[in-house]
């Protein structure tokens, strides 16, 4: 196995063009496990840790640009205010050691439906920045995942960053695991509210993401549309009153209905659907409570 260590992004892209089968590695929290378990034997590893550009946090227009090699620990420490949903999800990743090494870029590269960042990226309409010697393109998160551990990334492309709108309303993330820390998601759910619309101008007032309950991370589009319509038609954004329980209940059912779970070693399909309805209901309650408190403070 070759170990390629480019010093710059340009060198990294050239290496990837030359050796498309080379597996990029940053924190190694996924790749090394696969190698240790002998489930993967790449010809080459492409170490991105020397490429400074990939560890940068910046902004581009109204969006934050977060380098693919920024660790979960940095997201928690540096971006908790702008990206509260992603920070919450990052806190549920592995152990402190894993959070120090693991990256969202790695989550995207692995494209496992159980990756903790995916539901938030979906709920926030994040864009995945993919680069190659041919150029750079932006892929909406919703169009990035193709199947379990498969994405639309071309063989010569590297994930260089993701772009994501800073929160303009409350966000939540909740994940089910069968122990209270250091656990892979049995299922997870992310919710974002955008009372004034999205920074890029597109997308609705409600964002959702479902993890580990389908072949790919999923959006609960029906649930988003239902809730957005309910909030708008009843003037709830303006009145800021408590949500009727019928609304939170139906929202939960629609989220559960959007999932496509299976029975596996971590949990049953029936449990995943049930748990998603509960998580959707609860996270909606928490975000709506935050919104109401915020609205009152502004008034």
């Amino acid at each position, binding site marked *: 196995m070759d170990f390629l260590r480019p010093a710059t992004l340009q060198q990294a892209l050239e290496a990837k063009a030359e050796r498309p089968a080379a597996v990029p590695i940053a924190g190694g929290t996924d790749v090394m496990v696969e190698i240790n*378990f002998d489930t993967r034997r790449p010809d080459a590893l492409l170490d991105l840790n020397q490429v400074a550009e990939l560890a940068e946090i910046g902004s581009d227009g109204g969006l934050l640009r977060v380098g693919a090699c920024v660790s979960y620990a940095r997201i928690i420490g540096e971006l908790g205010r702008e990206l509260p949903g992603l920070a919450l999800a990052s806190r549920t990743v592995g152990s402190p050691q894993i959070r120090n090494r693991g990256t969202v870029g790695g989550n995207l590269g692995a494209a496992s439906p159980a990756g903790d960042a995916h539901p938030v990226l979906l709920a926030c309409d994040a864009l995945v920045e993919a680069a190659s010697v041919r150029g750079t393109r932006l892929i909406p998160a919703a169009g990035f995942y193709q199947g379990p551990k498969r994405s639309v990334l071309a063989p010569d492309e590297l994930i260089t960053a993701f772009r994501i709108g800073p929160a303009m309303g409350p966000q939540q993330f*909740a*994940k*089910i695991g069968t*122990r209270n*820390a250091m656990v892979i998601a049995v299922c997870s759910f992310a919710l974002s509210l955008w009372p004034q619309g999205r920074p890029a101008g597109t997308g609705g007032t409600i964002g959702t993401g479902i993890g580990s309950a389908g072949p790919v991370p999923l959006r609960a589009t029906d649930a988003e549309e239902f809730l957005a319509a309910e909030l708008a038609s009843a003037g709830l954004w303006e009145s800021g009153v408590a949500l009727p329980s019928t609304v939170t209940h139906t929202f939960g059912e629609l989220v559960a209905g959007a999932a496509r779970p299976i*029975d596996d070693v971590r949990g*049953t399909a029936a449990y995943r659907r049930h748990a998603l309805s509960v998580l959707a209901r609860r996270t909606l309650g928490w975000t709506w409570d935050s919104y109401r408190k915020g609205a009152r403070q502004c008034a």
Partner: protein
Amino acid sequence: MTGTSTATGPRTSPTTSGVGQSAGRPDARQKVTGEFAYSSDLWLDGMIWGATLRSPHPRAVIDGLDIGAALRLPGCHAVLTHDDVPGRKVYGLEHADQPVLASDQVRYQGEPVAIVAADHPETARRALGKIKVSYTELEPLTDARAALETAAPRVHDGGNVVRHVKIRKGDPAAVAELVVSGEYQVGMQDQAFLGPESGLAVPAEDGGVDLFVATQWLHADRTQVAACLGLPEDMVRITLAGVGGAFGAREDLSMQVHACLLALRTGKPVKMVYSREESFFGHVHRHPATLHYEHGAAADGKLIYVRADIVLDGGAYASSSTAVAANAATLGIGPYEVPNVRLDCRAVYTNNPPCGAMRGFGAVQACFAYESQMDKLAAGLGLDPVELRVRNAMHEGSVMPTGQVVDSAAPVAELLRRVSGRPLPPAAAGTDRDIRGLPGGVSNTTHGEGVVRGIGYGIGIKNVCFSEGFDDYSTARVRLHLIGGEPAADVHTAAAEVGQGLVTLQGQIARTELGVEQVRVVPADTSIGSGGSSSASRQSYMTGGAVRAACEQVREQILERGRGLFPGHEDLSVSGGKLVSARDGALAALADLLAEPAEATVTWRHRGTSPLDPQTGQGDAHVQYAFAAHRAVVDVDTELGLVKVIELACAQDVGRAMNPQAVEGQIHGGTAQGLGLALMEEIQVTGGKVRNPSFTDYLIPTILDMPPMKLDVLELADPHAPYGLRGVGEPPTISSTPAIVAAIRAATGLALTRVPVRPEHITGTGPERDA
């Protein structure tokens, strides 16, 4: 520490690291800093690497085996199969029924079929890939109760019952006013030690072999390895390497014979290290159990009878199933007085992974069932669950269902009172709580919604040391001599330090008995007699007893020298490095009496036990009984089925806390392992195949799962045991599981008859086939 201390024996030394003190572990710093050398760290220049080809099928006939391509691989030094085993082709702790390498058939997924040695682990892996095995797959027998049916296929020629233990006491037709019955299931728990199976075999010039390995019983390994190699035992020399946890999983052989075969064949040192995934196939697990119980009681709650039928899934090979079955049976009604008992316990063969020793050893499975029954009975009678237990609690002088009289402290009622009398942790309140204290923890699944608190109790009983007439002994050599003019003691045994603190304890005993500070515990190896197994909570008792006895003989030699030098002083002792007269104080430095070293080797036995009558299960089968009680306080997210254990209180009688800090560590660790069984730890096996052989999917508790503990350590001396001590390691593992499940039942009102309890069980969202 609370309770009374009535240690026997002399306290000759003011040492700060003697018996009864929290002497520090010599390996603590190395282990915390990552410097400790485990067996997987062994290294010898010129060594080559062994690897094992395992069956992918739980049951298959081997039609052919072609090793030619593997042998031709450059860098591959040897490929060995069943035909290359020079001695006995099978091994086993109680029945030698497990092939060193499979011959005509495989009986479980992961059974070793061939081994290779190569110049690099990667070469070895490639060589394994070049071995061609043709199998004819057969339908595996995977249901332990189906294995009992006469039409069931036979896993071994002798039939599928490994052992049937019957306990018959009193009136088999006794009737009672209140009867409760239930069927309970215990899943397959793994010991989940962190140091995988590993060792280094070095061929010796005499044609023998030196093996460095992490194990629990050096001499049992040697007996089996020598038989399989066809060598006399003295040509197989085993030294204990650094052990990264054991919990029963190192009682059976793993890579021992394989590495020695490869070393003797190639003439080179051979190292073998299992990967984490392979480790799940490389050792036995805790027996899954199905337990049917019927309890009959009078209106006042006094138990009138218990009838029980226990089936233990032993998997493909016998391992220690016969002894596990005996424990489940003899301890099967718990620490209660019951006049009429009819209990049947059968361990059976299936094509599931082999099961054998794990901390608690049969007592764990039974305790989950009988404690669940006690709660059910209490509910039926409208009695407090603690009160019902206290009314039936055994005590010193009680008679076991085997007819054995309990002849030392059995403070069952007191332990229950201790845990139930403790103040409760503050009630859950509000929705602003730190989520780390809530079910789901940092996964942020609740801010208080759906959370209900529950409280539950459990108490268990465990035997200490080996039972049923087994000749159980340990050997110790103690040598007192001068190092740099100062008196120092060497202590040598073959007893395995598996992390429990035995090395520390041996030093404490020598310091106390000989009045010296300098003690060197010599590495454990087979150049001395057997120390017996580091299991059955027996090493403090057995090797502690042997070291003390050897120290006593050495001390007597010193005193004899003293009496010769100082005639007229009959009341002599050694203390603080001096020879002391009761009348005149210090007479001489110990060093002055050690021109010649003083040395003694002692083989020490506990008092004898008896076999069980095969028809009635009557007999004084056990050496000592030990008890622990738990109270569990849990918060359950009743909507999501997630559990946070808020507090665990434990009361345990240890006879004498030889090292209080080590005692607390054992109670914490044992309790955590019981928590794991209650909530998450299960090897999931479908169709004979393991579905979760990794620490990604075999979950063990983290610091956020294991709550703070409140401990009550009683020291009620057992007059039959050295220093009055009682084995510590296993009892806390036994009772924490039922206490936690009882607390979840209290919070949810659900029956919960299976462990581990999964979120699906609490939310009613099990798989379709269970519906």
